[in-house]
């Protein structure tokens, strides 16, 4: 049996919250607004 490679759950990247949320429309990267009062 060939040796199986270890699997990296982070895909080799040091992912911070902002990296995980990249492309999402979130304020300050990870904050949702209270749509009514914050507007």
């Amino acid at each position, binding site marked *: *049996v*060939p*040796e*199986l*490679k*270890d*699997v*990296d*759950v*982070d895909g*080799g*990247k*040091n*992912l*911070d*919250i*902002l990296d*995980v*949320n990249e492309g*999402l429309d*979130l*304020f*300050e*990267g*990870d*904050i*949702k*607004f*209270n749509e009514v*009062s914050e507007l």
Partner: protein
Amino acid sequence: NSIIGEQYRWPIPVPYFLEDSLEINAKALVLEAFERYRLKSCIDFKPWEGETNYISVFKDSGCYSYVGNLRRGKQQLSLGTNCDRIATIQHEFLHALGFWHEQSRADRDDYVIIMWDRILSGREHNFNTYDDTRSSALNVPYDYTSVMHYSKTAFQNGSEPTIVTRIPAFSDVIGQRMDFSDYDLEKLNRLYNCSSSLTFLDTCTFEYNNICGMVQGTGDNADWQHVLNIPNGPSSDHSNMGNCKDSGYFMHFSTATGNTGHKAFLESRLFYPKRGFQCLEFFYYNSGHETDQLNIWIREYTDAYPNGTLTFISTVDGHPADYWQLYHVSLNVSNKFRVVFEGVKGNGISTGGFSIDDINLSETRCPHHVWHIRNFTEESAKQNGSLYSPPLYSKDGYAFQVLIRVTGDAEKPYDLGIYFLLISGANDDTLQWPCSLRQATMVLMDQNPDIRKRMSNLRSITTDPEYKTSNDLYFWDRPDRVGTPLTFPNGTQYFRGPGLGTSAYITHDRLHSRDFLKGGDAFILLSVDDVTYLNSSQPTPKPTAALTTQSSGSNTTRVPGITTTALISGPSITTVEPNVPNHCKDYECKNDGVCTVEDEKPICRCKVTSDWWYVGERCEKRVSSQDTVIIAVSSSVTIFVVMLAITLVSVYCLKKKHKKQLTRVVENPPLEKTSAF
């Protein structure tokens, strides 16, 4: 910094609901994050029981939260893919509890410079500040070490940092995602008026002469000594490692003198447990003989034994060594108690003895295993950057190893990776394969003497029985089926399966910060838990007709898998009213009672524990099991007394009647019947 306004605060404990959509690993980590809150603050969490407002944790795209209690019923907090890290969860819950990011506080420009030209176009608003009419830093200094601070690369358009710290030493400190910083906790505890924590009991470095209220035992032959060093080791304590002149005390029991069997007790102050389970952790140094013993006892005080009864817990199994070792003891005490350290001199020749330092006692679970890596840097270089733990067993019998891998080279080491691997073991024929829903928790311990101030680095992975390797084998199948044959240094052959983990466990800079490598040594705390129970839906409060979607999947066990399918209608970002009956709107249940509807009338279901419960229409009255015992005993005594009185009166009356009859017979004897023949 916190959002100003009492309306944004949550009641404690904070009600939460873990939606089915969450990954199992994330669910388990949420519970682990709650434990950190319970240890380090007064914030407690409880499963949602129908409270009007609660935090619903679910899996959406990304990790996000609202800021503060918006009193919108179900308030969502998302933990999407790659959000299953403990510090990310702590971070999102800090948002929910009412905190913004650290660098948005009003005075941040005094401490960091925002490099506006390096920020992605259109994202500049993410570096806004809140003035001090909207936010409060709660009189705590600017915190570069906050778990709520952006990292220096936030929203960058190139490779240059977007945040430059005015003190350069903090440039790589900002953005840590390990644990709460001291100031995070100070702010949290101020915001919620915390004066104590739920699960912390004691910490002791023996720096002061009062030795943390410990007392020398009686009925022994010797005393523990409060010392700075011992000629034959240790030469310094563990708290400061000899770095502070004239400080760095520890306690020492000498076995260099005295006879075999001589002993000394050191008893802790009294503790009043709440949870019924505890973890005692301490460092010890054994410079004595192999036959010397360090025993742990508990003196427990009960009504039956008000002077306490001693219960033996364990013997420290470490052999003599010229370094400090770490030891954990699991306790299950429900009554007032003390911890007792007993040193016993063995029958060998000793030039030292036992020393103890940096004791922590908390109502938490102990790690299952400790992997002590001596001289970490040298050792990892010697092993070409790959360190395997000794073979270990989970509580239910799976054999495993943990691999630490240093990326980069000795010249320029970068990140530290960590992986969990199953290996062949003695129980493989009786275990379930592929290994299903076992969560491996791997913690690089911050060796700060005070457990509350540690920022330990934790990552965990959960075994998914459906997960396959690239060549279509089950990843978590028997290691002798999917693994590689290898040989231990002692010549034993075994198989090692593939590892799952991360190459970005901790950066080199952070590894060398704080107390991760104290005296050059690292401690990896390891636990493997069965988290199958998290594959079931969290029970919901009992419904009225209005309660529909969430309760439909209640307590149903789903197909095993690391990511579970939502049984409820798809997660919605918009808010919904909590699923509590309308009849309960103005019907208040006291003492955490839950309102529900029966025959279209609101009734309270009162909180019940094994020792006490609430009764009454609104759960207004507390009854303890002691009360019922008193009622039972007093009723029995009353009935007995009444019965006794009735019996005595009856006997007395009968006796009197009998006496009267006798007297009558003596005075007027009946005529004898004569026979006629």
